[in-house]
């Protein structure tokens, strides 16, 4: 079964506030985004019969006063929300659900109503010291401190194998500030130069501060329904044209190839095949960027450029405003916001661009490719969105 043109997003919204939200628990962030998305779609909660989230969907169902008969709680990191959308599309296409609320909220910075340890917490002597997992036995003992000290582990290898320079890596942050400079809700809006990126504080060589995402609070939600029902809603429908998902390994040092994501390749190729489109048909791209190497790995593993070409492609301005492949136009996780699980925000920007209502809108966007990552290249989700009606 293909999911091509089976479903459409008819409601989309983020939390009312974004960035630092000390007065909302993680549950409330989900609900705030969910209510905003339902209002966008012109519906109330009684019309929702499916819920997806990485937190317990029952908590959200009861909070909203409904008894949904379809749920998805897939939790493979920040790409989970793209995978939820794919699963929800399959559920709707097969008749298991009609109107699904896909939602996300995370108090990544303020840590309100959160049970999981803060990202970057070490498994130290006073931490989870009986962790017999692979990372617990064979990595924590060497002093990593969260994704900042592990996610970029393959970068020096990638640079050596491809000839990519540190200036090219820095240019990812530069390009994305060019986008976020016109995005009022972005955390960082000031333009930066390659020199400024490379002069920022060293965090974990080769990564300096401006090459890493911030940690914020926020959330987002979508209302997904059958493509046959889009006329019942006031919003401009955004159809799911293609989708993919894949998982590789929870341990970055054991990736099959530390300079390329097998999950990105598997997930994105599936989405292209389902959509029946080529790279030339894509007007806009979002690639989950917790760190500057992600858009580089992403452009190559998704096939937009060849092996080793992404650094120069970005450095030359191809992904910047006015470039031929607008990328991370909200400023990305690096500049817009990053609560810890950024995938929802990457999708929200794809949908805004396809609707034509983004803060830094690209003219004439019909299709957007959104690529998510979960963990540290552990998981991938891909979605291709379009505003063109079926058989149109």
């Amino acid at each position: 079964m293909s999911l091509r043109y089976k479903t459409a997003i008819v409601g989309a919204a983020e939390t009312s506030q974004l960035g630092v939200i000390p007065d909302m628990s993680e549950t409330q962030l989900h609900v705030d985004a969910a209510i905003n998305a339902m209002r966008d779609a012109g519906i109330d909660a009684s019309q929702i019969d499916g819920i997806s989230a990485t937190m317990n969907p029952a908590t959200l169902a009861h909070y909203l006063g409904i008894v949904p008969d379809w749920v998805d709680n897939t939790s493979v990191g920040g790409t989970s929300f793209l995978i939820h959308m794919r699963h929800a599309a399959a559920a709707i296409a097969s008749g298991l659900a009609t109107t699904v609320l896909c939602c996300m909220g995370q108090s990544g910075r303020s840590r309100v109503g959160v049970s999981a340890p803060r990202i970057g917490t070490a498994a130290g002597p006073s931490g989870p010291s009986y962790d017999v997992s692979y990372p617990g036995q064979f990595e924590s003992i060497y002093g990593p401190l969260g994704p900042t000290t592990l996610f970029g582990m393959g970068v020096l290898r990638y640079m050596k194998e491809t000839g990519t320079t540190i200036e090219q890596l820095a240019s990812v942050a530069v390009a994305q500030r060019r986008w976020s400079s016109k995005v009022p809700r972005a955390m960082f809006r000031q333009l930066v130069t390659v020199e400024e990126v490379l002069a920022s504080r060293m965090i974990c060589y080769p990564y300096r501060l401006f090459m890493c995402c911030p940690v914020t609070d926020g959330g987002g939600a979508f209302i997904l329904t059958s493509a046959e029902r889009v006329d019942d809603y006031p919003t401009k429908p955004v159809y799911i044209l293609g989708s993919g998902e894949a998982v590789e390994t929870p341990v970055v040092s054991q990736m099959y190839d530390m300079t390329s994501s097998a999950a990105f390749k598997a997930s994105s190729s599936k989405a292209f095949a389902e959509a029946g489109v080529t790279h030339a048909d894509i007007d806009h791209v979002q690639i989950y960027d917790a760190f500057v190497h992600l858009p580089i790995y992403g452009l190559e593993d998704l096939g937009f450029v060849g092996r080793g070409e992404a650094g120069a492609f970005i450095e030359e301005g191809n992904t910047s405003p006015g470039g031929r492949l607008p990328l991370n136009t909200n400023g990305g996780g690096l500049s817009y916001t990053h609560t810890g699980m950024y995938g929802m925000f990457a999708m929200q920007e794809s949908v805004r661009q396809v609707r034509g209502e983004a803060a830094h809108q690209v003219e004439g966007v019909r299709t957007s490719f959104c690529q998510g990552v979960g963990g540290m290249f552990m998981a991938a989700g891909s979605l291709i969105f379009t505003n063109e009606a079926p058989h149109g």
Partner: protein
Amino acid sequence: MTEQEYRKPIPHPSPETEFFWRKAGQHELWIQRCIDCGEPFFYPRLHCPDPGCMSDRIEWFRASGRGTLYTYMINHRPAPGFEADAPYAIAVIQLEEGPRMMGNIVGIENTPENLALDMPLKVTFTDATDDIAIPNWEPA
């Protein structure tokens, strides 16, 4: 090893890894190999990780202890127990036998200038407790 208390995280072996850590405690690096397809692998498992093989005929063998520096990062914000080392490299070592494993680099200041990718390394062990020693790597 000095008499100073070892303050870094200490591994807690599981049934699959107990042999690895027992040998590490004796300052020997042992990894596994599939008897049926011959492929060496790491981390320790009870069956061959080749999806087309899946054999449970597995044997341990002593690795050469030689490897090369595959990639690394240098952490400037130390994890608990690593304060005295910062900035320190968290490295991935390509073992001569094929598999990769993580390690710290000792016996040399951890600077980008000193740490060239593919430089030869040899294993060395840091005693953590009476029974546990941590495999680390030094320039060969």
